[in-house]
């Protein structure tokens, strides 16, 4: 490698993140407990810095660096910007929650930033190894985060489950990658794409590898039949960490999917399309139907996540620019929605009380009509009712499926979203139609109230004026994917 040619610019946000993270890690050792707010502030500042650098170094065309192992393109930049914003929001939402539960320590923030760094690396990878390194960095940080409350049995159990099953999925992925390597002679995504396109690879090996890759990817997304960990981890983790597992990592998983299948194995579309279709159909059905009977709202949102991932896959498996961009739009909107939903749960939790059951939301409209309205917007958006952003996400996905003549799939998705509406409506019903049992005041830090309001109202704003974000996704996909 010639050091003079080393282009560090594409990795600038990550370099900044790592540097700042190291500083925080060391500095935190010297900060006494009562001034822990400093770590919180510095973490937010770091995220703001990352977002600013990301914005200033916006790639107008894909740039590869580090011997083609790393890429900066519009897809990565858009998703990373979203991840910085959502991680910052997550830190704001969880500030009081972690303080009330003895988790307000330096590790919480450094682990969160390490997870983010892992996601950044995943998103910017143009090589299977880089992808894998990023994924492991993310996963290890998340395992530790879940187990951060050592004295909580359910959290330890969730961490253990996530760790064992996550390791299994990583194994599957690695095995799949090794087969692809055997079939094409390369781990670099663009080379793999060229070899498959030219038809010179070993097809049998490639198809076998593909099966393992799809299994591993579906595990990371939490799609059926690799979804068993999702409800347990969502329910068992402290709500703050559930939010961290459920928000930005879904964006990273989406890019993971697109880098491997969309960029690397686009020419094996016929092979993976059928697999993903089954996964998507099962995810929507099992996710939505099982969510109906849940009484724990975190578990309900976990099943709802599974169904949302099914929807995302419907867009993705179409396998063209429209399909990918609809899936990308879906992923971004999904993250906004799940952040708002868990944000409300965090706002309603306080020291010694976890807002976990649907019935804990009873009469929220009487207690505080503003938070009830925000949750109402979020729930209707998740149900896909216009004029909220969730509608356009579903609309774009169904449109892409119909464009590809997949009429039965589109109709199935539509019927499933009807079933989904039932349990979202039940949450609204609990908030608005039932009388409050718990009359205690809802105390929320002002910065959290502001962020949460902006978050939920963004769902309405993006519903009334969706054009900007939709075309942003479309342009990013167009720029980053050279469909052979």
């Amino acid at each position, binding site marked *: 490698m010639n050091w003079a040619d080393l282009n560090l610019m594409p990795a600038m946000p990550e370099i900044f993140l790592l540097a700042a993270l190291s500083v925080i890690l060391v500095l935190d050792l010297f900060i006494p407990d009562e001034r822990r707010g400093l770590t919180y502030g510095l973490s937010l500042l770091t995220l703001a810095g990352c977002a600013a650098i990301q914005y200033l170094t916006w790639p107008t065309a894909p740039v590869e660096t580090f011997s083609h192992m790393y890429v900066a393109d519009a897809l990565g930049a858009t998703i990373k910007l979203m991840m910085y914003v959502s991680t910052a929001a997550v830190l704001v939402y969880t500030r009081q929650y972690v303080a009330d539960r003895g988790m307000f320590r330096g590790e919480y923030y450094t682990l969160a930033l390490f997870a983010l760094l892992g996601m950044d690396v995943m998103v910017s990878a143009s090589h299977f190894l880089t992808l894998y390194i990023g994924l492991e960095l993310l996963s290890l940080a998340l395992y530790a985060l879940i187990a951060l409350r050592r004295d909580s049995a359910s959290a330890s159990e969730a961490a253990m489950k996530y760790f064992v099953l996550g390791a299994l999925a990583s194994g599957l992925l690695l095995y799949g990658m090794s087969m692809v390597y055997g079939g094409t002679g390369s781990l670099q995504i663009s080379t793999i794409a060229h070899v498959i396109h030219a038809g010179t690879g070993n097809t049998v090996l490639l198809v076998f590898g593909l099966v393992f890759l799809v299994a591993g990817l579906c595990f990371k997304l939490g799609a059926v039949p690799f979804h068993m960990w999702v409800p347990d981890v969502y329910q068992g983790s402290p709500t703050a960490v559930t939010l961290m597992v459920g928000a930005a990592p879904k964006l990273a998983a989406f890019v993971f999917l697109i880098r491997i299948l969309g960029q690397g194995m686009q020419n094996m579309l016929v092979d993976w399309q059928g697999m993903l279709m089954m996964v998507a159909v099962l995810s929507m059905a099992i996710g939505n139907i099982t969510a109906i009977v849940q009484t724990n709202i975190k578990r309900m949102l976990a099943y709802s996540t599974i169904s949302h991932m099914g929807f995302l896959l419907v867009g993705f498996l179409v396998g063209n620019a429209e399909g990918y961009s609809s899936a990308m739009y879906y992923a971004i909107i999904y993250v906004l929605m799940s952040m708002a939903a868990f944000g409300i749960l965090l706002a309603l939790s306080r020291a010694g009380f976890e807002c976990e059951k649907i019935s804990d939301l009873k009469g929220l409209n009487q207690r505080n009509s503003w938070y009830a309205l925000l949750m109402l917007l979020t729930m209707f958006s998740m149900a896909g009712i216009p004029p909220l952003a969730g509608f*356009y996400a579903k609309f774009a996905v*169904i449109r892409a499926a119909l464009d590809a003549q997949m009429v039965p799939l589109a*109709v199935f998705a*539509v019927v499933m979203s*009807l079933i989904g509406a039932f349990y979202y409506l039940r949450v*609204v019903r609990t908030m608005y139609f039932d009388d409050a049992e718990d009359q205690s005041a809802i105390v929320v830090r002002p910065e959290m109230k502001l962020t949460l309001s902006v978050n939920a109202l963004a769902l309405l704003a993006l519903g009334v004026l*969706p054009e900007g974000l939709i075309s942003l996704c479309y342009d990013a996909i167009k720029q980053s994917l050279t469909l052979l």
Partner: protein
Amino acid sequence: MLTNLLSLVIWVPVLFGLLVLTTGGDERAGLARWIALVGALAGFLLSIPLFTSFTELHGGMQFEEMRPWITTLGINYHLGVDGLSMLFVVLNSFTTLIVVIAGWQVIQKRTAQYMAAFLIMSGMINGAFAAMDAILFYVFFEAMLIPMYLIIGVWGGPRRVYASIKFFLYTLLGSLLMLVAFIYLYFKAGNTFEIAAFQDLKLAFDVQIMLFIAFFLSFAVKVPMWPVHTWLPDAHVEAPTGGSIVLAAITLKIGAYGFLRFALPIVPDASRALSGVMITLSLIAVVYIGLVALVQTDMKKLVAYSSISHMGFVTLGIFMFAGNTQNVWAVEGALIQMVSHGFVSAAMFFCIGVMYDRVHSRNIADYGGVANTMPIFAAFMMLFSMANSGLPATSGFVGEFMVILGAVQVNFWYAVLAATTLIFGAAYTLWMFKRVIFGEIANAHVAALKDVNKREFLVLALLALTVLGMGLYPQAFIDKMHLSVNDLIAHVAQSKL
């Protein structure tokens, strides 16, 4: 000002609704009521030029507005009204005003949210009638479910939770398949969601049948046609008075309007082929539901079933387009019936609401001899009951008469069956009226009744004026819609195969 009139009619009520929400809790309910009244009045006044400046010289779109909205997905913010839709925008704005006045004292719990829900819903409904882009229509069509769900669920009766969820899911089921149909048509029409482009599209017969089924599921639930009507009695009984008024007067009309705007012009051959089925379903609604209404013991349920029966008349009129050119009458009759039913059903539900506020019962058996204690109210209710039974000189007569005239042209026996409504309608309405209003004072509650106050009198008088006005001079309404209906019939007469 006229260039943005439709946008104003849609968004002024919505903005006032949001403004009402900002007044907060019930300690400032008075302020919320006044803002709501100003908003409803502004919405109604803005809608009046739609009627007065509406030209009768052509049947095309008027007051058109066109802006790109979501260009990536090919969706435009395209508004316009013609003779089929204009009256409903005005009717809706008028009804919103009535609802705000009707809920003035009755709603003491979360008043601001109640008023805001109605104002926002009013804007959404206007949008659905004015939308010329299929997705824009769909957005408004679905968005109105949210406030209605809350209205039934928060301010409704004992079984409100069941009724509200049933209402929501029933309506959502139909409309989701319509969305798929829209997207299918979008690709057929060359990446546009313009309804006009859909209407000019050539479609194979089997495709037309599939699309018709999608439209049917969506709009038949909304109308509601037999046998997908079961949500309506539940929703009506549990909804507060204002909710019942808007449901009966406006939202049911969107279903019938949908048939006229989408099903007939986009899939005319399927509509013609299936018109026999639709007429049969309509006649079942007219006759069977009329009989069901007869045995009801709950006043609200009775009027709810009467609504279904009357809406059966509307769909009957619409689907007799397939006969011959004379059947401009049937379709116009259906439209007149829709407007008239908007006034009459609003009035009937309001009357029941007036009694319910005093006695807190909707059971017919709990009343008797109300005329002795509430003579002014009894006189008004008499008029509305007559209109509901289709007495000449009230608005209820005109539409039914025109539809029956149209039916005679198609098939004599259709007309005979349809005409039974004049008997059943009179029977269930007047029998209820007799049991509630006439006779000896039945109990202490009735003896303690006070006659209508000024606010209630105002509402009743406004409704009485419109019911009589429309009955005596229907030509004013028919003229507005005549050319649009002619164009529609001419368009539908041409095969699209």
